[in-house]
Each structure stands twice: as C-alpha cells, then as structure tokens.
C-alpha cells in the first residue's frame, strides 16, 4: 500500500503558514520573477470575491480592497518542503518527494496498520505544521495520488475499480484536445473511459489514449525515488511592513519556534542550538546563536531565551526579515542524586544569567579567575561553567591563607596621608579620617616594566584609630585607601 500527501496550492500554503489567520483572508500569490506577474494561487476567500488565477494584481485589487498580495518565496517553499518530508519520514522510512507539495510514502512492512487512522494522524500532524493536506491511500502510488486529490481530507481506496469509475475523466490528465473529444463522445467518468476498451481507444486516439488507459486502470506500480529528509530545521519570513517593536516579532518567533519543535520531535530530536537572524532595513545582518545548556523541546523555555535577548536588543533600523533555525541534538537525561549539586534546570539558569547580564553588564557577572600576575586585583570574569558538577568528590586544596580578608573599594578611594618617620601617621579620606595607631609595611611591588602597562606601588596595612584595619597604597605620589580588612 502507498500513501500520498497532497498539499493543494502548495506555494501559497508555504507563504500562508508563516502568519496566523492569513488563510481565512483574501490572499493571492504572484511570482515577482515573471515579466507580467499574474495571480498564481489564491485562498478560498479571494476566490469568493471573484478573483481567479491568471488575473493581474490590479484586476485582483479591483475586486477587493482587503486583498493581500504575497510574492512567492523560495526559502519558505523550501522550509515547507522540508517540513512535509520530515513529517512523512516520521511515518515511513521509504518516502519520495514526488512534486512540490506531493509526497509518496511506501507503507509496506508497517505492522498492523489501520489506514484510516494513519491518514488522519498524518493530516493532524501536518495541520500542526500549518500545512493543510489531503491524504490518499491506495494499492499503488498513482491510485494513492488520485485518492489524495479527491480526498476531503483523507481517502482510503479499498475497491479501486469502484473508486476509479466514479472519478471525473479529467483526473487522469488528458490533453485539452483529447478531453474535448471525450466530451463530444459523452465520456465524463473514468469508468466510462475504461469501458471503451484499450484497443478501440488506441486505434482512434493514438498513443496518448494508451497512456491514459494505463492510468485509468491504475493496476501498475512503480519504484519510488527514495529521499531522506534534510536535517535542516529553518523557518523564514520577509515582512511586508517593517517591524519596529518587539511584540509582532515575538508573535512570529513563537509560531516559528513551535513549528521547528514539532518538526524536531517528529524526527526524535530536541533543539541543541537556536540561531536567530534578523535583516534590517539597512541590509545590515544580525545573527545571534543561543546555545542551549540542556537540549530541550520545551517551547516556553526556548521562547523565554529568545524573549530575554530581544528585550535588550536595540537597533537603529527597523526589521524587514527574520530567520530562525534550530540545530538538532539528543536530549540529556539526568537522574538527580540525593547529595548532588547538579543544576536542576540548566536552561532556566542560562536565562537567569542573561537577565543578570542585562541588569549589571556582561563584565560584572560570572566566575572570577585570578590572573597569573602579581598585580593587585588582577582577575577576569569568565562565563559560568555549567559542567562544574562533572567532577565528584571533595577538592583538596592547601589552605595557606593568613590574616583577615580584604574588602576592596573599587575604585580605590583617594586619600591624603601624613607621614612621620617614613610611616603613615594620619589619613584623610572619605572612608576614614584620623590617626594611625600601628602600621605594617611597606610592601613594594612592580611589574610589566617592559610595556606601557607598567605599574609600581607601595602598600601599607594600618590600624586606624576607629579600630579597623585598612590597606593604603601609594602609586607614584598618590595615596589611596584600597580596602578594609574585614
């Protein structure tokens, strides 16, 4: 048995699926590559107001002021084809990309299959991808295609002769000339055509009639040209009107994300990475890759990630195009241990880090890493590692720290220091003002004398009259209170 997925007006459907509710409005599709573009495909609402294929856009607009004219988009057609094939592949490993919007599945070897259920499920999954499809199931690919074209939305052919006899003769694709002759003869259905007999038909109508008869009896099968669906998960849209605020962008992004995740789930994948590309009016490209700490197919988690980022995005020009793609990956399953410190929700943590970055700045959030330098306060901030828990067991580190901890003033507070016999005797600064009771020092240090970043300093630890310990430092001739020992 074979199944055929048939998406009528496929090019139009590829465009309509990007925007919600568009299929109910009068929309026509034109090909801007044509010299004189005409209406190629149209929605039922457009047909309802008197628009037909072949009309010029002006003629179509004259029939409805609400009409939307959409251009064909190769990227959207490719995305829809990929989605169609991926959906088909989730039902059968043997699939053929028969034509644009037509996919044939070989159902041989599928166990205990209820064909009606399969057809309904196929139609439902394609509806989740916003592709309204007709499903036909028959003994051979041609019969299945005829069934799909006639389906509303599913048709399973159990008695092929009965089914074919009732079909209109044009469904087997006669040429216009042959069709006119058949009409003159009073032949309206395939059954009437077959009843004429193969030999009399070939004698009177020639070679074409033989081919038509072959199709009309539909008793021959053919091998499928098998394809594998591409591992590309991408959705794209070019906006008719420029986007200046976040809300419409989020609306489309969520729709895209849902579709991508349905496609990934059908192939038993989850999203490992998301790539967002924006096209601005100035043709300036913008690309941002979101690495997902714990690959997931959860729409809310991934949408929050995109939302958080877009909230902080500022651009000089409005957005005219959007592209969202997902890299597939395997889900990581982790069983939480009783005494483990594993991140419970790495994706939420990643999002929290993004929010913290937006709040305090990228250089002020992270894990500090001390630099290999004697220069005081020399550290850099690194991104928080999510694999910290990978190691287990207690970390044995030699504890050599002595004395109280320094609580730094960043930047160091300028001070005026009065020296007596080469030692600080009094300090005047915004953090402390008064006499110095006791001192330790000086400790002199310098470094990087070989480049412009050279530094040299003198440090003193002082016990002030307020009972607290401060660190003073002198760089060149300037004194600073660097921190308090706390």
């Amino acid at each position, binding site marked *: 048995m074979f199944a055929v997925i048939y998406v009528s007006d496929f090019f139009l459907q590829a465009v309509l699926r990007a925007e919600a509710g568009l299929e109910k409005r009068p929309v026509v599709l034109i090909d801007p590559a044509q010299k004189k573009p005409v209406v190629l495909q149209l929605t039922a609402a457009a047909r309802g107001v008197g628009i037909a294929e072949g009309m010029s856009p002006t003629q179509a607009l004259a029939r409805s002021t609400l009409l939307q004219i959409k251009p064909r988009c190769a990227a959207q057609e490719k995305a829809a084809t990929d989605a169609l094939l991926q959906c088909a592949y989730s039902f059968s490993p043997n699939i053929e990309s028969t034509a644009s919007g037509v996919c044939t599945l070989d159902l041989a070897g599928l166990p205990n299959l209820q064909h009606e259920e399969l057809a309904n499920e196929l139609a439902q999954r394609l509806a989740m991808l916003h592709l309204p499809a007709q499903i036909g199931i028959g003994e051979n690919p041609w019969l299945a295609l005829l069934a799909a074209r006639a389906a509303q939305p599913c048709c399973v052919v159990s008695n092929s002769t009965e089914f074919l006899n009732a079909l209109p003769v044009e469904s087997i694709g006669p040429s216009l000339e042959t069709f006119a002759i058949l009409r003159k003869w009073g032949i309206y259905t395939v059954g009437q055509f077959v009843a004429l007999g193969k030999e009399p038909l070939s004698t009177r109508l020639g070679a074409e009639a033989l081919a038509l008869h072959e199709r009309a009896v539909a008793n021959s099968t053919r091998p499928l040209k098998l394809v594998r669906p591409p591992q590309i998960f991408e959705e794209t849209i070019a906006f008719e009107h420029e986007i200046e605020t976040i809300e419409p962008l989020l609306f489309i992004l969520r729709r895209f994300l849902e579709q991508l995740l349905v496609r990934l789930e059908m192939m038993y994948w989850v999203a490992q990475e998301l790539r967002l590309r924006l096209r601005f009016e100035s043709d300036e490209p913008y690309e941002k890759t979101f690495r997902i700490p714990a690959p997931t197919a959860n729409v809310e988690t991934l949408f929050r990630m995109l939302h958080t980022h877009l909230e902080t995005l500022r651009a000089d020009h409005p957005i005219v195009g959007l592209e969202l793609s997902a890299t597939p990956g395997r889900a990581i399953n982790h069983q939480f241990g009783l005494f483990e*410190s594993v*991140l*419970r*929700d*790495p994706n*939420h*943590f990643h999002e*929290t*880090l993004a*929010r*913290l970055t937006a*709040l*305090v700045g990228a250089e*002020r*959030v*992270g*894990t*500090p*890493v*001390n630099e290999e330098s004697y220069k*005081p*306060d*020399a*550290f850099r*901030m690194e991104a*928080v*590692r999510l694999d*910290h*828990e990978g*190691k*287990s*067991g*207690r*970390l*044995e*580190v030699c*504890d*050599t*720290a*002595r*004395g*109280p*901890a*320094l*609580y*730094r*003033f*960043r930047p160091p507070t300028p001070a005026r220091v009065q020296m007596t016999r080469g030692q600080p005797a009094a300090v005047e600064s915004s953090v402390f003002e008064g006499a110095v009771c*006791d*001192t*330790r020092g000086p400790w002199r240090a310098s470094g990087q004398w070989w480049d412009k970043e050279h530094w040299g300093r003198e440090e003193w*630890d002082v*016990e002030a009259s307020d*009972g*607290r*310990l401060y660190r003073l430092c002198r760089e060149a001739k300037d004194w600073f209170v660097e*921190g*308090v*020992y*706390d």
Partner: protein
Amino acid sequence: MGLAEKLPARPCFATGVAQIDGLLQGGLSKGVVTELVSAQAGGALTLRRILRHAGEERQRVALIDGADGFDPADLNNELLAGLLWVRCTDAAQALKAADLVLRDGNMPLVILDLHGNPAKQLRKIPGTTWYRLQRIIEPTPTALLIVTPKPMVSSAEVRLSLANQFTLQSWEQTEAELVSRMKFVLQRAAATEVHEPMAVEAS
C-alpha cells in the same frame, strides 16, 4: 547516633564555619532567610571561609556583591569554579539581582552581601522587600544568607551577629585560626526570638 540526629529535619547548607554550623544545627537552612550582622569586622572573612568550604565541596554559590567589594585573590581558581559572582553598583541593584537568582532556584546557597553598602542606600530598601525575598525562597531548595552592617532584615528567620575586631597581629594567624576565634551570637532562631543570645566560640 540515630537517624534523626544524623539528618536534620530541615535540609541545610553546611558553611564550614564550625560556630555557625553548631548554632544552626548543621548549617544554613534551605528555604529560610538567614541574616548575618557584621557591625565591625569579620563579615568578609566569614564569607571567604564559606566560599572556600563550598569550593572544596564543589558546591555552587551565588554571591550578590552589593558594593563590589569581594576580593577573589585569596581563593585559588579551583575553589572559585562554582561561584557565580554578581558585582553590583548599589544595594537596589543587588536586590534586583538577588530576586532573579532566587527565582532561578538552581543555587543551593545565595549570599547577598550588603555589609559594605553605605547606610544611605540601605535605608532606602523598603521593608516589604525582605518579605518578598522570603516568599521566593520558601518553596525552593536554596539557602539565603544576607550579610548586613546592622539588623535590618525583618523577614529573617535566623539572625546571627558577629562581634569581632582584628589587629595587625591577626596576620600571625591562619584563616582557620582566625575564624575559629570569632564570636557568633544567635539573636533569632526559626520562628522564635532568642531572649538570651546564645554565643558559640569554637573550642
């Protein structure tokens, strides 16, 4: 030792500071706000000790640094590997950051260090803020330690105060020795005020 003694009823985060773990019967309770009042000195040293212990145990800790005063130089990079350090410019920003980190719920311990912030900033914190933080962490497996220069966290179920002073001779002692000599006083314990403060000094 029975199971009830071995495993405290409320899960807690061991700080590695013997006095705190002793007073709080195991460490900082999760889902509870603990306030450490460090009026004089010792707050930064206590934090360093807690971070060292968490690093040794490979535990994650978030340090919301209200005045960007933490000095990582005394801890080596391996110990710092599990630290999320948020360097804030003022107390208001620190509270916003704490709100985000607590809502995340991934960190077993969140330290909100406000003891270096000017009194003017701390006075501007509305009293309801502390209750909001308490409500956030109540259902989470996170312990929240707020270090302040004076008692101010009205929603703190546990309040410890630290009375300590260092001298220049303190450099003769190791960090462990210094911490063991510090005096912590339990002023408020879960749901009940402690009328006679309990003080613990490590033996």
